[in-house]
């Protein structure tokens, strides 16, 4: 057994002869099956183009083309010689510190589901254009989620609500804010007389201390009024579970940097968690194998998640069986010597030898070994009992205080969201609630289906809805109020750990919206106070902050030392055992339907964002749609093909969704993302996906058992990107072998024995065909991407889209392979389709020193710079697309249309003025963020100092939650990127064809159980 042999298993030699074909990597089941449709797809450079040219209805004939060309040539001479007169409009009074055209950065916070994410927003000439993470903020650490980054597009969405609306007797009027303030005062007087009886506020979850103060004032004024908080997706089960074993409402904070063994039970801690960015940062830092140690991750889950993809051992298990697995894990832990509370560790639901039992044995053994460095974490979709048992297990391991800490949950008396909204719905039905103010959210659309909330809301005589969009709920309310976006209003918010941030506006409200605090202030009799006054008042009263503290808070984006205090709760005697007992009696029952918040549009609130709709789902690579995900075996059993519409029925409610076959999904499980199929979501959201809320009841909010799946025979075109831009190295026959060399990986053990394994995976005798040009630039730019750290979240794709004015092209174009993203995240599966491993590979332009694109361009539109950049010159490009044809990495994107001509004036405000907006007929691709490089170089030169390493950061690297992407100067031998390029794990993909890529990848390391490492037997 030597390193090479292991490589044959893991990565395969490209020149090693045909005999040793090892592990096969594949992108989709079609590819694995090598279907004829897939072959055709690969053979085409741009799938769908031929069809376009042949289609008589859409394509111009040759004759009409010539006519049009002749006319446009004739008219060309008539255009003016000088471009239009431009005006310079300087400020009459230039604000202090403002330099025209120079970006200003402001710290603020964006809230999602009651947890704040601290961000830095770049504003150019008064227009916020880019959201970055705030390095000082504990939930961000410099990274930003796709949701946070898409906030600028949401801000400028022309379909946001622009006016107040009053609906009365079937009529729709447009009142003013003054009218509303008068109405609020009137209502307050009336309500005060009856002590607030019959009045309720339904608010989305918020951590704002100002809103909390106003709520306090409101309930003081109207003691009989009710305050209801509702989020369709929340972590109430975790809260309830912790309450079961600790007796109080607690909030858990995970510390992955402390963990050596993590067991994730249906939990996507790396993406679907309010602190996911911090988790990802800690995970990415720990998984590089430096120092010879890295944490091991076990994941058991029904649907393939990013955490499951990142795991070393993954078990596909129906969500309803997770509790049983946890009991098994507890039993195995007890057997391995962990002292469990009474009543736990006695049941083993799985018989020895099953994959479940093996998984539990391995995981429990590891946990018992590392004790307080172990962590068991359960996802929000699991029932409270599972959380309770997991908390007890963590307690038994001694992990509380190291890998998990607790704080008192804010608003500890709050009712769980699903119960609270059910009670509210009942009170609307029986008339005990006559007046309802809804602050944010969209309950008419996303409340549990059996509540019939929409009908009851429509029947309520006095309803007010504050919302960014005039959505499904607004349409049923008597008053609709336009809400100020978080980027255009003052406020405050607290992170998941409690750290306070002041929310400051970047721009005046575009449509005169107001914040929830201002609306509440109007009700409690303080209509004259602006959101700024209210926020400052809270700041002064609760944090005693004077002017200095306030300015510090605005500048830093956080108020230091405001995190919630860590508490040391006591485990209640028998509670864990009782919870375990309740879990043990749950049998698996029939096919499961799992409803989960979407990775892109979340619960539906981001559905009108083109950036998010077009971001490929990390696992399915689906854009513009949700789909009923099925395991391959289930699809076969049901005789359902990818894209075929199926009807999913549960308890008399049904939904029809196209099927999407996902390898690695547990058998007997159907997954369906929430947030699609909006009726009143705007023109971007329209037609995207199907609405899953009609089958979602309070009891089946996350999981419905015993669902039926039927074929309908209809099909829906699903725009996935998984087969686009296939790196077709040397034809189909070669692909199976070659793709293996793109992703190189080894276990930690193997890496320690053979550190140079990645470099030895291929060898080549390729020699340059011509004299190579020596690059003489002062700097030599390069990138390094660590596959060990990358979790495939796609934050880089959105960061790049926002930074570089990348167009959204729509479902039809994506289906043709014409998405424009400059950095895509390739997703490969490896191994057995029922239990695959998932590998992600971000793929920007590699900036090859021997760039194949350059030698084929007939007009020198793509040329090399002295600093090693592969430059694309839009003005020279005539659109032959030869370069794209010749690019082995398939990273070049062609503008088939003028993608920005129909973009609204407000949306244009989101453009980065430092980057040209490309027109039809030109090629484009990753520039390594040349605008940032030039800005950094100019700044350093102006100050007559050398550039510092890390001073220039491309958008993708800046936002990467795991810091997988590093950019810098190779001429500086001490730079981080130089160090990584010299790293033993570094390799260039397709370097055997002598392209000399400037982007090197660091091979992936895994840390599977067992000293020998997985795959050892393959010699």
């Amino acid at each position: 057994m030597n390193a090479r042999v292991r490589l044959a298993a893991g990565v395969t030699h490209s020149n090693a002869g045909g005999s040793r074909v090892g592990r096969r990597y594949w992108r989709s089941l079609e590819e694995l099956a090598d279907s004829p449709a897939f072959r055709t797809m690969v053979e085409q450079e741009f799938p769908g183009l031929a069809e376009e040219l042949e289609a008589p209805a859409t394509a111009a004939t040759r004759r009409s083309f010539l006519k049009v060309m002749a006319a446009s040539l004739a008219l060309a001479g008539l255009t003016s010689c000088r471009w239009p007169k431009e005006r310079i409009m300087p400020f009459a009074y230039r604000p202090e510190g403002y330099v025209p055209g120079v970006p200003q950065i402001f710290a603020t916070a964006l809230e999602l589901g009651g947890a704040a994410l601290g961000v830095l927003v770049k504003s150019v000439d008064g227009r916020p254009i880019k959201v970055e993470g705030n390095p000082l903020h504990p939930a961000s650490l410099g990274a930003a989620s796709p949701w946070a980054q898409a906030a600028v597009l949401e801000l400028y969405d022309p379909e946001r609500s622009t006016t107040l609306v009053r609906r009365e007797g079937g009529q729709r009027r447009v009142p003013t804010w003054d009218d509303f303030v008068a109405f609020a005062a009137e209502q307050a007087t009336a309500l005060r007389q009856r002590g607030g009886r019959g009045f309720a506020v339904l608010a989305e979850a918020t951590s704002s201390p100002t809103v909390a103060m106003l709520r306090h004032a409101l309930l003081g004024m109207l003691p009989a009024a009710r305050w209801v908080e509702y989020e369709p997706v929340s972590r109430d089960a975790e809260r309830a579970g912790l309450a079961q074993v600790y007796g109080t409402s607690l909030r858990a904070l995970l510390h992955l940097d402390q963990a050596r063994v993590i067991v994730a039970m249906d939990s996507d801690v790396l993406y679907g968690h309010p602190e996911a960015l911090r988790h990802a940062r800690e995970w990415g830092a720990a998984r590089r194998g430096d120092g010879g140690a890295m944490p091991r991750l076990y994941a058991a889950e029904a649907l393939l998640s990013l955490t499951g993809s990142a795991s070393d051992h993954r078990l596909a298990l129906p969500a309803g069986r997770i509790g049983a697995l946890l009991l098994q894990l507890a039993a195995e832990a007890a057997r391995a010597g962990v002292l469990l509370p009474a009543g736990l560790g006695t049941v083993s639901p799985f018989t020895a030898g099953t994959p479940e039992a093996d998984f539990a044995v391995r995981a429990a053994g590891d946990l018992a070994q590392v004790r307080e460095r172990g962590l068991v974490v359960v996802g929000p979709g699991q029932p409270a009992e599972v959380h309770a048992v997991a908390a007890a297990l963590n307690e038994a391991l001694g992990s509380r205080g190291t890998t998990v800490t607790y704080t008192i949950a804010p608003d500890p008396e709050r009712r769980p969201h699903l119960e609270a909204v059910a009670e509210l719905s009942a009170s609307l039905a029986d008339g005990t609630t006559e007046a309802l103010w809804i602050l944010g959210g969209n309950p008419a659309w996303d409340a549990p289906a059996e509540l019939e909330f929409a009908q009851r809301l429509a029947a309520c005589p006095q309803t007010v809805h504050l919302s960014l969009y005039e959505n499904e709920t607004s349409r049923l309310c008597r008053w609709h109020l336009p809400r100020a976006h978080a980027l255009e209003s003052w406020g405050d918010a607290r992170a998941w750990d409690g750290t306070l941030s002041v929310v400051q506006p970047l721009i005046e409200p575009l449509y005169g919206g107001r914040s929830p605090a201002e609306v509440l202030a109007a009700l409690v009799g303080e209509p004259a106070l602006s959101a700024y006054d209210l926020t400052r008042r809270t700041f002064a009263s609760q944090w005693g902050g004077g002017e200095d503290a306030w300015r510090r808070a605005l500048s830093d984006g956080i108020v230091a030392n405001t995190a919630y205090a860590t508490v040391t709760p006591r485990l209640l005697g028998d509670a864990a055992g009782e919870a375990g007992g309740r879990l043990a009696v749950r049998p698996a029952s029939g096919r499961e339907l799992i409803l989960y918040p979407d990775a892109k549009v979340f619960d539906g609130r981001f559905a009108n964002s083109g950036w998010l709709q077009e971001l490929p789902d990390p696992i399915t690579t689906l854009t513009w749609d949700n789909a009923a995900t099925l395991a391959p075996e289930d699809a076969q059993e049901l005789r359902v093909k990818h894209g075929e519409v199926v009807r999913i029925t549960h308890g008399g409610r049904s939904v029809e969704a196209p099927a999407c076959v996902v390898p690695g999904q547990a058998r007997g499980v159907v997954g369906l993302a929430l947030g699609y199929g909006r009726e009143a979501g705007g023109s971007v959201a329209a037609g995207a996906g199907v609405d899953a809320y009609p089958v979602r009841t309070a009891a089946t909010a996350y999981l419905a058992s015993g669902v039926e799946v039927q074929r309908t025979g209809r099909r829906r075109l699903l725009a996935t990107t998984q087969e686009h831009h296939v790196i077709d190295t040397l034809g189909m026959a070669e692909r199976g072998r070659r793709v293996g060399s793109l992703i190189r990986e080894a276990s930690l053990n193997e890496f320690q024995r053979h550190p140079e394994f990645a470099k030895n995976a291929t060898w080549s005798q390729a020699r340059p065909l011509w004299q190579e040009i020596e690059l003489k630039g002062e700097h030599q730019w390069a990138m390094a991407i660590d596959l060990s750290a990358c979790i495939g979240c796609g934050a880089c794709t959105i960061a790049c889209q926002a930074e570089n004015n990348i167009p959204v092209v729509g479902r039809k174009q994506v289906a043709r392979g014409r998405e424009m993203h400059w950095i895509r995240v390739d997703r490969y599966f490896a191994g057995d389709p029922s239990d695959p491993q998932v590998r992600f590979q971000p793929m920007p332009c590699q900036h090859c020193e021997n760039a194949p694109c350059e030698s084929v361009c007939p007009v020198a539109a793509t040329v090399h710079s002295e600093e090693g950049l592969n430059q694309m010159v839009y003005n020279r490009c005539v659109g032959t697309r030869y370069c794209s044809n010749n690019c082995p990495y398939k990273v070049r994107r062609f503008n088939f249309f003028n993608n920005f001509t129909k973009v609204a004036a407000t949306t244009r405000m989101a453009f980065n003025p430092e980057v040209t907006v490309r027109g039809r007929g030109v090629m484009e691709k990753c520039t390594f963020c040349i605008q940032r490089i030039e800005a950094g170089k100019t700044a350093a030169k102006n100050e007559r100092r050398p550039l510092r390493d890390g001073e220039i950061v491309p958008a993708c690297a800046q936002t990467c939650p795991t810091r997988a992407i590093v950019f810098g100067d190779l001429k500086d031998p001490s730079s981080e990127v130089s160090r990584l390029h010299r790293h033993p794990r570094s390799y260039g993909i397709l370097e055997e064809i002598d392209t000399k890529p400037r982007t090197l990848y660091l091979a992936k390391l895994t840390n599977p159980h067992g000293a020998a490492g997985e795959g050892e037997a393959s010699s």
Partner: protein
Amino acid sequence: MKNDDGPGRFVFPAWTNLIRPLLAVILVTVPAYLVVLVWLGGSPKTTDVGYRPEQPVPFSHAVHAGQLGMDCRYCHTTVEKAAFAAVPPTQTCMNCHKQVRSTSPRLLAVRESYASGLPIPWVKVHDLPDYTYFNHSAHVRAGVACASCHGRIDTMEVVQQVQPLSMGWCLDCHRNPDPHLRPPELVTAMDWVAPGDPAELGRRLRETAGINPSVDCWTCHR
């Protein structure tokens, strides 16, 4: 009248013999003319040099920069630190014009702007295409004089463009910057003349300051 050629036979008049040579001449000259017309007529030298739009305020650089000897940076404050040499806010004008000629009708638009807070709509003279990213600070800090691109502003009653600002013109200097460099502290001097050989001085300045203008496409286009 009748001849051997028979009745009705048409004979080309003698002058038609000229058509062929004439056609040849036209075929040669007209395309050449068109090429020259487009080449020269459309070149920035013809279309842009001398562009001299009327401004909303009859501001005289000749008075301010010339007679009064005000430094360019008194108004264009951002030229050393930003890409744009920003046109000053109305405030800057009123620093002096609250006292000086405070009732002049020529300054009416300035006073109106100062009172209303609305901008004065100046007309852009030196207008680069939107795909060209020029940075004033990089040039000024390196010792490229204002006058090198903008000409003798201190003599202009109405500002006009004196250089073509074409890509070729930019590249001439980027390829051979020496004759255009001067000590950075003298960049705003309008009438400065290099002592001795400007290229020699420029060479020394370039070498000491490490000035290395790039001719890569992405330096200006991105």
